[in-house]
């Protein structure tokens, strides 16, 4: 739209026609206060804080509902305006409890800030205030009614934003109150957006309330460890006896790829980190058959020696490695390098949650969609998956573009997923009907051809001038190929493939495959890797995950090294299968797999380390170290130590201390100075110069960026915390479409998150609360 020019506080501003005055001001650095206005949500004009004086208007006007007009002359601050705002605050404070000293929001409360700014310091109100007890609405949502200033942000974010509509307004006048949908409790997605958006302390978090003061925490923005969307979560951490505890998760700076959004997992399911039953000491199985605590040196030496013996006696092919969906790219990369160069095996795999190799092959240089692309999309085709449950961040972005930009959503699914409510058109197909649907869309003969609805769906879709095609794990191998082929006949298409966990994509990209090197390079093209790693690589494809278990059962797998995975539970493996396999496990907890191990190393989680992760859309992001737990080590460090214990050349594994390797500006060590010392002590003991440590994942990022061209994004931007979309340069491999289909979707819901989820008491409490209440038999 054309620009209009207006004058605000004597400054000439130029802004697109149709802009709200409040936005025009804010985008030019002029702050107009507001409680009820919230960008992207419907207008309320209820709080009257944004009043400004517009020339030729008899009364003060609300900037939140006024659209700019050519020649408009506006004043946003004057004695008259300040008085109006002051009076509004005075009226609010009249019935406000003023329990700021104990209120969760104290120190980060918009009402406090406004009171401070407009100086409503004299208490005029002498009437009796209405007291109401605090109510618990769900395991994670509490409501303190007297503190509520009725800005209706929570109601709108829940309804308009989340499409949940679990909050309403009841009664009227001074009796007005925010009410949950089940009279005294909430039945909702527990996203906690209402808490985040509440300008005061009326809605508080079950996980955080009354725990600390905001200024007693450090706030670290990092990436959520749960689903594959890669939302930014800001962790509030506080020093405790054994490290730094995470006290709170929220989305306070909203600068992440997720915009305003955060789901229950990103917000509350950090609590596994603080659990009492975390492993904090290495465990070694003793002669009596019991796992018992051991010192780091004992455990490392024992594991390293055994692995070395097995490698030297039986060859690398007798050893298997299982990597993780939640470790960093650097760790996944290091793990496969360790497997291939130190253990001399290609027996490496991970729990595959999407067929990324087939996707990489099919893309062949075509554009992949970033999660950010969904925010500005004009049209989206969603095939399979249920983003509301499995990719809540994506679901939010889709709903937002439908609502705010009129994006058109096309849904094809075998289930009646909730996002259909936003769909322009949708088709329900049988569970095995996706290939046939793609054939139909591509104009080939197909079973659905006679279906009028499908025909209309196709017709509308083909009219789109640009399209994001996003598909779930229903698509694998040749189906992905066919889909990308069809999509490529349309104009301006981008693709996205949905996988499950925080770094499922990175695990695949980094080469946790028996037949593929980092960047999906086939073993036949290992030349550059061998050269860079200074080692000959095993040429034959290794065993995949099920094959490793088969080999173990046959007695052919002498050792298995499991990093951050719980394959025994995931694949319902019979524990006895591993009885003759030397098992080394790195984990936070004594999982079903760890319980069978010969050596267990206590590992740090994603919130306790630095590095990068790649979300399922190929957005590369920095994770920062927020928390710390005495006794645990990042997987990166553990792999390096294990390699050292095997007497491998550490400098070859991690190219630290070399020219051209850039440090990470201290990111890796977090706020915890002790860690740097620890690195130094270890380096000296190894007769190494105590400088850039091999435990710093950034020591290996250079190498990744060199060998996996897709990851060669600007490093400075990355370290500054900006998500970087991968470059379209993943290697094509010939046999991708015909690889063995080993994708096992996690089938997680909003309230589960693989094995990790079961260690979150918040997620468990929500799940328990959702069990239908038992009724007496009658």
């Amino acid at each position: 739209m054309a620009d209009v020019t207006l004058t605000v506080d004597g400054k000439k501003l130029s802004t697109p026609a149709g802009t709200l005055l409040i936005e025009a001001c804010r985008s030019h650095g002029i702050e107009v206060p507001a409680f009820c206005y919230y960008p992207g949500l419907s207008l309320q004009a209820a709080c009257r804080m944004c009043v400004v004086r517009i020339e030729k208007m008899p009364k003060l006007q609300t900037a939140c509902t006024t659209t700019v007009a050519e020649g408009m002359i506006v004043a946003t601050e004057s004695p008259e305006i300040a008085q109006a705002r002051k009076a509004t605050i005075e009226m609010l404070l009249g019935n406000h409890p003023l329990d700021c000293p104990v209120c969760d929001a104290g120190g980060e409360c918009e009402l406090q800030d406004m009171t401070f700014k407009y100086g409503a310091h004299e208490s005029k109100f002498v009437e009796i205030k209405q007291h109401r007890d605090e109510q618990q609405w769900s395991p994670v949502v509490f409501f303190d009614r007297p503190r509520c200033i009725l800005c209706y942000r929570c109601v709108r974010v829940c309804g308009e934003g989340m499409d949940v509509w679990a909050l309403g307004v009841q009664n009227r006048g001074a009796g007005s109150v925010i009410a949950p949908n089940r009279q005294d409790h909430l039945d909702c997605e527990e996203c906690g957006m209402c808490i985040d958006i509440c300008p005061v302390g009326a809605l508080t978090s079950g996980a955080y309330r009354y725990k600390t003061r905001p200024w007693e925490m450090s706030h670290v923005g990092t990436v959520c460890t749960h689903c594959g969307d890669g939302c930014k979560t800001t962790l509030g951490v506080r020093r405790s006896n054994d490290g730094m505890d995470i006290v709170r998760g929220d989305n306070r700076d909203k600068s992440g790829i997720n915009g305003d959004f955060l789901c229950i997992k990103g917000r509350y399911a950090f609590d596994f980190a603080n659990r009492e039953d975390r492993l904090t000491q290495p465990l070694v199985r003793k002669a009596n058959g019991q796992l018992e605590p051991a010192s780091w040196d004992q455990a490392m030496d024992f594991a390293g020696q055994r692995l070395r013996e097995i490698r030297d006696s039986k060859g690398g092919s007798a050893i298997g490695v299982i990597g993780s969906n939640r470790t960093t790219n650097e760790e996944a990369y290091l793990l496969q390098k360790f497997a291939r160069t130190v253990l001399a095996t290609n027996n490496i795999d991970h729990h595959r949650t999407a067929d990324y190799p087939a996707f990489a092959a099919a893309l062949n240089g075509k554009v992949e969609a970033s999660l950010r692309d969904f925010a500005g999309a004009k049209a989206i085709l969603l095939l399979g998956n249920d983003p509301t449950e499995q990719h809540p961040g994506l679901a939010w972005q889709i709903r937002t573009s439908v609502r705010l930009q009129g994006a058109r959503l096309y849904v094809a699914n075998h289930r009646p997923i909730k996002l259909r409510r936003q769909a322009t058109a949708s088709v329900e197909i049988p569970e095995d009907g996706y290939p046939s649907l793609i054939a139909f869309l591509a104009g080939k003969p197909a079973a659905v051809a006679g279906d009028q609805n499908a025909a209309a769906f196709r017709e509308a879709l083909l009219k789109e001038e640009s399209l994001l095609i996003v598909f779930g794990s229903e698509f694998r191998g040749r189906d992905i190929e066919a889909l990308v082929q069809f999509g490529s006949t349309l104009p301006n298409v981008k693709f996205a493939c949905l996988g499950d966990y925080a770094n499922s994509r990175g695990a695949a990209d980094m080469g946790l495959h028996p037949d593929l090197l980092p960047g999906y390079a086939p073993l036949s093209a290992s030349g550059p890797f061998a050269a860079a790693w200074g080692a000959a690589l095993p040429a034959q494809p290794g065993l995949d995950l099920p094959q490793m278990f088969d080999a173990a059962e046959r007695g052919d797998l002498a050792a298995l090294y499991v990093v951050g995975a719980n394959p025994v539970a995931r694949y319902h493996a019979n524990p006895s299968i591993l009885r003759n396999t030397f098992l080394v496990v790195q984990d936070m907890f004594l999982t079903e797999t760890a319980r069978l191990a010969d050596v267990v190393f206590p590992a740090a989680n994603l919130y306790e380390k630095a590095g990068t992760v790649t979300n399922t859309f190929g957005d590369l992001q920095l994770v920062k170290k927020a928390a710390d737990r005495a006794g645990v080590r990042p997987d990166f460090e553990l792999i390096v130590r294990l390699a050292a214990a095997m007497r491998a050349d550490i400098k070859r594994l991690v190219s630290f201390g070399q020219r051209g390797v850039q440090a990470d500006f201290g990111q890796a060590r977090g706020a915890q100075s002790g860690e740097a010392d620890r690195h130094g002590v270890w380096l000296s003991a190894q007769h190494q110069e105590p400088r850039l440590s091999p435990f710093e994942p950034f020591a290996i990022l250079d190498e990744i960026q060199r060998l996996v061209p897709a990851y060669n994004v600007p490093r400075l931007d990355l370290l500054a915390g900006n998500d970087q979309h991968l470059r379209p340069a993943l290697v094509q491999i010939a046999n991708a479409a015909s690889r063995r289909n080993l994708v096992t979707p996690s089938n997680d819901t909003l309230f589960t998150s693989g094995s990790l989820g079961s260690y979150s008491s918040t997620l468990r409490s929500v799940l328990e609360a959702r069990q239908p209440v038992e009724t007496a038999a009658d």
Partner: protein
Amino acid sequence: MTTLFSPALAARFDKLVTLYPIKRSALVPMLLYAQDEVGYLSDPVIAEIAERVGVTELEVRNVISYYSLLRTKPAGKYHVQVCTNISCMLRGGNEILDHCKKKLGIPNKGTTADGLFSLEEVECIGACSWAPAAQVNYDFHENLTPESIDKVLGEYRAKAEKGAAK
């Protein structure tokens, strides 16, 4: 659909939702009619109405709690609503209210033990030129005096007794 309402009312509701450009427009009248028949807006009534107009129960409760004539708790068979707003106040509305309290032995918003009468002080009911006034259910009683309100209450009691005798 199975319904909580009498066949006549259910039929009325079926028609009501078709009268307007959107179904939801029938909500407020529907709630009133349902209340008239059932006595108050119980949870099952709310659930059925929510379904009839295609909104959530929360939405229905939001609406109910806004309007002063709608209630989610039972009232007396005869709901006595005495106006004490300005025109009535000037002509003795408060005295009529006090008189009713005494006579019925209940406070404002109370219900008699036999469930026959409930009492409520209300805002202006549109009888200012014939003040003081009260409404019993939907019937207006105007130019009231303590004596005349006694008579009115007596008539309702008689009516109830007659109904019970039948």
